[in-house]
């Protein structure tokens, strides 16, 4: 059982990151970013380049992933959000455009880096491994939880206390209200997509040190992230974190007792059941506000 708990906490951190990236973009700008997977792989390659060429210091590599992720977010802003904002059929066009970009990204990675797996040297080897009961907690897991906690704390502080952060939160609530108080949606979009990209970038490095990096390595995390974001109620950040925990727990239990091939099946059953009962996801429960 301690094994399940340790796996759950570790996965919660990573899924929360990807889901926060998806959910923040959705709530702030109103589109589902299907190039999340390509951003993920891009950030992983970016961090890998940093690790092999610049420094394998853990802070430098993690920052590399975060910065490349944020830059790719800004690129999505330039190539998808700004050209399509306010155009008819916005939902469909942003879906198509981000999906297309995702294929472009994957092929650029294939062309540049080839199909071979890339691997990071262990990032968190300086942390001592320890035991909880029977379970050995590897440095990578401890490091994942700490790094995630730090990034989420920094970004939460930015969003909660800065002027731009207030603009981001206002945009998630009312586009018209935001315009009326002088918030420029188009410039704030860079902050929203940058922060979303930073979350995804960190997740990419943290998973990249456990698995491998290859051109398609972002798709599976993106699907998990979408499941978590939907389960949490698209747009709800608190919902995303709670849903990340539920999904991680379901996955850990499935891994332990049924085996890895059952994971996606369990997750899809979970999301189907939750959405049948609660069509707006967990956020529907959290929001006690009047319409």
């Amino acid at each position: 059982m301690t094994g399940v708990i340790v796996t759950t906490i570790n996965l919660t951190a990573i899924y929360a990151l990807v889901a926060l990236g998806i959910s923040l973009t959705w709530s702030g700008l109103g589109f589902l970013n299907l190039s999340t997977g390509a951003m993920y792989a891009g950030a992983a390659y970016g961090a890998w380049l940093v690790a092999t060429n610049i420094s394998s210091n853990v802070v430098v590599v993690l920052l590399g992933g975060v910065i490349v992720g944020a830059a790719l977010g800004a690129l999505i802003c330039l190539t998808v959000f700004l050209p399509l904002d306010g155009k008819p059929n916005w939902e469909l066009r942003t879906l198509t455009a981000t999906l297309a970009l995702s294929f472009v990204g994957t092929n650029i990675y294939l062309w540049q880096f080839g199909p071979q797996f890339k691997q990071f040297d262990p990032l968190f080897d300086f942390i001592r491994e320890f035991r909880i009961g029977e379970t050995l907690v590897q440095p990578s897991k401890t490091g994942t939880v700490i790094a995630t906690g730090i990034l989420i704390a920094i970004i939460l502080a930015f969003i909660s206390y800065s002027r731009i952060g207030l603009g981001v939160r206002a945009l998630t609530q009312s586009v018209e209200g935001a315009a009326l108080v002088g918030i420029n949606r188009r410039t704030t979009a860079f902050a929203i997509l940058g922060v979303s990209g930073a979350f995804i970038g960190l997740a990419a490095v943290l998973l990249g040190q456990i698995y491998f990096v290859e051109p398609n390595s972002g798709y599976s995390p993106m699907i998990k992230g979408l499941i978590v974001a939907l389960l949490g109620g698209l747009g709800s950040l608190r919902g995303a974190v709670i849903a990340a925990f539920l999904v991680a727990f379901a996955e850990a239990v499935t891994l332990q007792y049924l085996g890895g091939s059952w994971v996606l099946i369990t997750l899809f059953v979970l999301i189907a059941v939750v959405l049948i009962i609660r069509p707006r996801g967990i956020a529907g429960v959290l929001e006690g506000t009047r319409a």
Partner: protein
Amino acid sequence: MSAALEIRGLEAGYGPLSVLHGIDLSVADGERVGILGLNGHGKTTMLRAIVDLVDWKRGEILLNGEDITHATTHALARRGVVLMPQGDALFPGLTVKDNLDAGAYPGGSWKRRKERRDYVCEIFPRLGERLGQVVGTLSGGERRMCSIGRGLMSEARIYLVDEPSLGLGPGIAKGICDTLLGLDLQGGALLIAEQNRALIDGKIDRALRMHGGELAPDTGEDGGH
């Protein structure tokens, strides 16, 4: 002297629908002008046209002599054109404090947000008691106060107020209108649309009547046909 707000030949509407048919209006610095008229005759559309929240518009709108006809909503807010809209357009998931602070978003006001917030809480003490409360849980009257308070967070050149009494009980509506129209707006002009003449009578400099998308001098009679 250039007018705070000058509107010339304004036509506006939504899709194929034309709502305003040539509005001419001039509001002097510090002047308070009321627009009376029944629902559906274009009061809201006129205010929304000024801040670029309609589908289309023709004509000319000047702010202190500068052409703002094609300026965007957020740019106008930064230049001191503040709309307190119908339906409030608040941020329901954010606290009263965050909603008010958002009203000070434009660069210069942001640094003075704390003193402005204190000022707004002095005007509406009820907001002061509820600063930490999420706006979605407020009553209708408190929300209206919050919407007006958010507008007052920056020193506007012109405040546009769209039917502050809408959906409120008579007592609270009168209280809010009295408070708002009793304020010293520090030179800012005010354009208020209201259906209920009694709420603004005697507290404004002059009134106009909106009828069928056109403005006419107010005859002093009540709205019916």
